């Protein structure tokens, strides 16, 4: 018997978007006929699904495009292949070679064959589906690996090491790998370029645009005068190459580590935050459109300064736009609140990630790339913040002028009450010594004063020009002897100073002679009552 010459094409998918290949067995049609597609809404599908046994096509009274095509292809009989109640294929046969009709024996045989073939076909289909799945997943994995590779390739291998600064960074790609990036590079005059950006989209295209943007900025930045010029050129450059509907948000900051000065421009990226030592958090705002969106864009350029202890946070929207279990957003206010709580960069990053984890819950699948970069101007490694620096001629009475000016200079530190009184007494006594003894009241010789706050210490340095002379040690005056007239009533200055301050240092370079008065700021700003060692 030659009936099973019809070839069955596997159904794609379990649902009836069936493709039936039929090869007419007619002698005159030896070549393969093209597969016949049966539309999902074709009446033939429902019919074959419920048919029991072989169906003679010519006898069918169905309004079906598929049946008409089968007839045209010479199909005479169709046997539905049903596995576990589901139509998995059709066995289509042309006319018998003998040109006789199919007998009832033939039909029985076909039915038996179909019942055995159906499960086998189903198994084959499942295997194929699985193979296709695996291949598709491999393709996606492969793409993700490439995207990750590109991204990792272009993230900094190490963070800049700057005297007096601490830089920390965190980057975690989302499952689908977004287009986040950050970068640091050296610029002329010891300045540092810092870039944080986010390319719209995911995967390899986003990674390539990210790599391009980063490389362009990195190579162009040293030649440009300022951040806005760099972003303007990057925008023009990307304009021509970037895929449609793709753009790049990008923040570019130039830091001068020597002064803490920042110059920055922003192409639509999330605003960076600065936390000052008081705990106040401000945004650094500069306007500009994302890169690659429109030609001829201009970018606002702004300046700011990081004071010792200030924390700068650059970030992408991966944190603020993360959703909680109820679809509520993590949000910028929460970020700001957390910022106010953390003084250290790495500490802040850990705190943000921790809060994010608690907010989203353990089952959260990261929605977007997360980038966090912190730049902290260390409060303790610096030469100190100069609060005041001035000089006055050596005239009697100027000790009070020195005292008033120093008191004014330390006002922002919050020193008050008795500590301020002690400071004033110590300063005026020191200045008086400099005027009277060091400079011998010579008007042409200045008394120099420098007030610095560093590392929790307030230091007031008073210098005169009497560096060649010895400074007497501060001795405890003998009041009994003074009252008895065996000792002069004077000689209280150094003794008083020593008792007013936390520390007194005397130094000389042979020409200038300097007395440094030191106050412990933690104690001084508490309005502490026990500064200075009392001698009773």
């Amino acid at each position, binding site marked *: 018997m030659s009936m099973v010459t019809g070839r069955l094409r596997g159904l794609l998918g379990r649902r009836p978007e069936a493709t039936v290949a039929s090869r007419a067995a007619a002698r005159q049609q030896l070549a393969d006929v093209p597969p016949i597609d049966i539309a999902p809404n074709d009446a033939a599908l429902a019919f074959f699904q419920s048919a029991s046994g072989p169906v003679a096509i010519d006898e069918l009274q169905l309004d079906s495009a598929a049946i008409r095509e089968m007839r045209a292809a010479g199909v005479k009989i169709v046997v539905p292949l049903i596995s576990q109640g589901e139509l998995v294929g059709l066995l289509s046969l042309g006319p018998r070679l003998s040109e006789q009709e199919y007998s009832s024996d033939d039909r029985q045989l076909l039915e038996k064959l179909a019942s055995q073939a159906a499960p086998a076909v189903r198994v084959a289909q499942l295997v194929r589906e699985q193979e296709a799945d695996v291949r598709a997943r491999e393709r996606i994995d492969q793409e993700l690996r490439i995207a990750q590779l590109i991204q990792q390739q272009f993230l900094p291998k190490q963070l800049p090491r700057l005297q007096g600064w601490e830089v920390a960074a965190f980057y975690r790609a989302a499952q689908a790998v977004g287009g986040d990036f950050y970068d640091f590079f050296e610029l002329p005059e010891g300045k540092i370029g810092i870039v944080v950006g986010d390319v719209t989209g995911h995967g390899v295209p986003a990674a390539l645009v990210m790599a391009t943007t980063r490389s362009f900025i990195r190579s162009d930045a040293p030649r440009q005068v300022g951040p806005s010029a760099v972003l303007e050129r990057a925008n023009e450059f990307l304009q021509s190459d970037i895929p449609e509907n793709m753009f790049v948000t990008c923040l570019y900051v130039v830091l001068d580590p020597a002064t803490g000065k920042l110059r920055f421009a922003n192409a639509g990226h999330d605003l960076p935050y600065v936390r000052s030592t008081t705990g106040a958090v401000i945004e650094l705002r500069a306007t500009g459109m994302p890169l690659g969106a429109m030609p001829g864009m201009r970018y606002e350029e702004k300046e700011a300064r990081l004071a010792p202890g200030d924390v700068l946070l650059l970030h992408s929207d991966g944190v603020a736009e993360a959703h909680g279990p109820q679809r509520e957003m993590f949000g910028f206010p929460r970020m700001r609140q957390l910022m106010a709580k953390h003084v250290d960069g790495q500490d802040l990053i850990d705190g943000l990630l921790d809060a994010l984890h608690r907010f989203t819950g353990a089952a959260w699948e990261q929605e977007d790339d997360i980038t966090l970069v912190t730049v902290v101007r260390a409060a303790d490694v610096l030469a100190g913040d100069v609060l005041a620096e001035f000089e006055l001629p050596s005239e009697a009475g100027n000790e009070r002028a020195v005292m*008033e000016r120093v008191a004014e200079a330390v006002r922002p530190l919050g020193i008050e009450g*008795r500590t301020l009184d002690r400071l004033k*007494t110590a300063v005026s006594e020191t200045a*008086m010594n400099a005027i009277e003894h060091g400079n011998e009241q010579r008007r042409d010789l200045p008394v120099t004063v420098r007030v610095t706050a560093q590392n929790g210490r307030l230091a007031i340095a008073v210098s005169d020009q009497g560096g060649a002379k010895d400074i007497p040690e501060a001795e405890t005056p003998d009041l009994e002897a003074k*009252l008895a007239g065996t000792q002069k*009533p*004077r000689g*209280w200055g150094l003794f008083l100073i020593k*008792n007013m301050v936390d520390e007194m240092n005397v130094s000389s370079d042979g020409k200038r002679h300097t007395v440094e008065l030191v106050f412990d700021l933690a104690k001084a700003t508490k309005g502490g009552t026990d500064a200075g060692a*009392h001698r009773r």
Partner: protein
Amino acid sequence: MQERTADKAAVRHQDGVAIVDLPARIDGSAEQTLNDAYAEATQTGAKRVVLNFSGVDYLSSTGIALIVGVLARSRKDGKQISSCGLSDHYREIFEITRLADFMRIYPDERSALAGS
């Protein structure tokens, strides 16, 4: 800045006690003022002298030396000297310098007058 250094100290007498209202600024420039005030306070035969510091806003180490000088003289003269109206800061300085060990210190004029 108001210059009150040339101000003479005001001397008042009450119940046989001489009260000296000291000028705002007691430093080297107040030497004559202080000596005059002491002379004025004691010439009428008052046994007790109260130095009223309530108007003092600046007391330098030289000023302290002047107070020490006055105290030394009073001891020689057999007069009793006490102080009142010292700010917390200057009271601390009186303690550090041990002036507080050699003269009685009252918070205000009333308690100084009542004190023996």
